[in-house]
């Protein structure tokens, strides 16, 4: 019996009038043409087991030995989870990682995710031959001098490791060692970056702003600039970002600010129309948290029209 763990969403058995109803599992070898339909009911034997985690994102079942013996070295097995005739998840059609089950021995790395990984973030390594005991898996990245850098193993099972990407790791070779066996692959690492877009979103284009993070000035816009974007390297963790008025001629600031997906805004209002006394300076502070994720352009920025990519004019002056 070979345990097989799949990840996805909504893969728990469904509660029906007669109790839990388990999905069927259809295995199709594209090379040999051998098909197998498993109908697990979890009645207490391994060949019938279908176990999920609480969040229904992971399910483990067992591939029968009788089916494995029909496989060849180059077999590619499509896995289809059938909740019903209408609800099916197919590894080939849905282009999962990996698309197929393959068969191997020893220590092998099938894939790593996310791509790219980021320094200090987590990396999942999927393969075979890993050790269930964390310390028995040695994982190394490469630094910019091409030296090996050891990584902390956060969790381990025979088919999956989760490790923390070292701060000094760069794109290059990833090595996993278990006992006297070694497996390598290439891993893409990206430094953590931050993207901010900000500007004037009043009907009069007259304001300019300066951005500082933890007291250090980062960049500034020109008067009336609708959309000013900054991309910069940053470390993970909580920061204080300040948006300060440079040119705000009518003592009335109209502003917005949006962040890349790896930033959570903990406090601060990301758009506003703010009046202030003559002689004062406009300033808004934001508490943000930079997460160890690869950067994207600002997402879900409500202040930019997704069709025209133009800034929405939200405030009248």
């Amino acid at each position, binding site marked *: 019996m070979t345990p097989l763990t799949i990840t996805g969403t909504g893969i728990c058995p469904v509660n*029906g*009038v*007669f*109790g839990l*109803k388990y999905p069927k599992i259809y295995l199709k070898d594209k090379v*040999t*043409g*051998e*098909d*197998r*339909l*498993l*109908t697990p*009911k979890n*009645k*207490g*034997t391994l*060949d*019938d087991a279908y176990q999920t985690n609480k969040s229904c994102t992971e399910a483990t079942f067992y591939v*029968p030995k*009788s*089916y494995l013996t029909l496989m060849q070295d180059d077999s590619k097995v499509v896995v289809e989870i059938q909740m*019903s*005739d209408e609800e099916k998840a197919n590894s080939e059609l849905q282009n999962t990682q990996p698309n197929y089950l393959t068969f191997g021995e020893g220590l092998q790395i099938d894939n790593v995710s996310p791509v790219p990984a980021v320094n200090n973030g987590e990396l999942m390594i999927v393969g075979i031959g890993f050790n269930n005991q964390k310390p028995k898996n040695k994982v190394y990245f490469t630094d910019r001098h091409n030296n090996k850098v050891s990584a902390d193993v956060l969790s381990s099972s025979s088919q999956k490791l989760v490790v923390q990407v070292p701060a000094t790791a760069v794109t290059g070779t990833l090595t996993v060692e278990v006992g006297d066996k070694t497996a390598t692959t290439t891993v893409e690492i990206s430094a953590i970056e931050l993207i901010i877009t900000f500007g004037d979103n009043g009907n009069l284009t007259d304001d300019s702003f300066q951005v500082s993070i933890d007291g250090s000035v980062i960049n500034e816009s020109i008067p009336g600039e609708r959309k000013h974007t900054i991309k910069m390297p940053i470390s993970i963790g909580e920061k204080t970002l300040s948006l300060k008025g440079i040119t705000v001629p009518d003592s009335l600031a109209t502003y917005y600010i949006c962040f890349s997906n790896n930033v959570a805004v903990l406090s601060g209002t990301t758009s506003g129309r703010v009046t202030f006394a003559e002689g004062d300076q406009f300033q808004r502070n934001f508490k943000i948290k930079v997460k160890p994720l690869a950067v994207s352009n600002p997402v879900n920025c409500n202040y930019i029209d997704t069709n025209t990519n133009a800034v929405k004019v939200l405030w009248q002056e």
Partner: protein
Amino acid sequence: MRKLITFLAILISFNAFAQQPNYGFTAKDKKDPIFIEKCKSFRQAMAANDLAMMRTFVDPNLLTTLSDRVDEALLSSMKDHLKEINRKGYRLISLKMSTGTRDNINGVDIEYIASPKFTGSDSCVFEALELARWKIKPV
């Protein structure tokens, strides 16, 4: 005379299973052949599109309180079973007692083949009621 006795013995045995209710039948232990017989009976009812017979395997309380949902679930099981047995080249390979170790669950494991290179497994699951009585889980 010897043949006749054998025949009578089988007949009596068969009648003994048939006389037991489909819901709440008793078994002397988890190896009792009645599990195989009830599994076969339930599969025959599904193969014959016999919803009324399938309902005899269901908790009578459920039949009164959740009749529509019961029928829906039974029809779904029937559809699955018909899909199984109507596969081209379908042939039942084995139907045998499961080796599960849970006290309150018993099972019958079913293996079948179909063409061109299809193998499948299914099972009947039984859940214990009180006083050595059992019911089939109809899904």
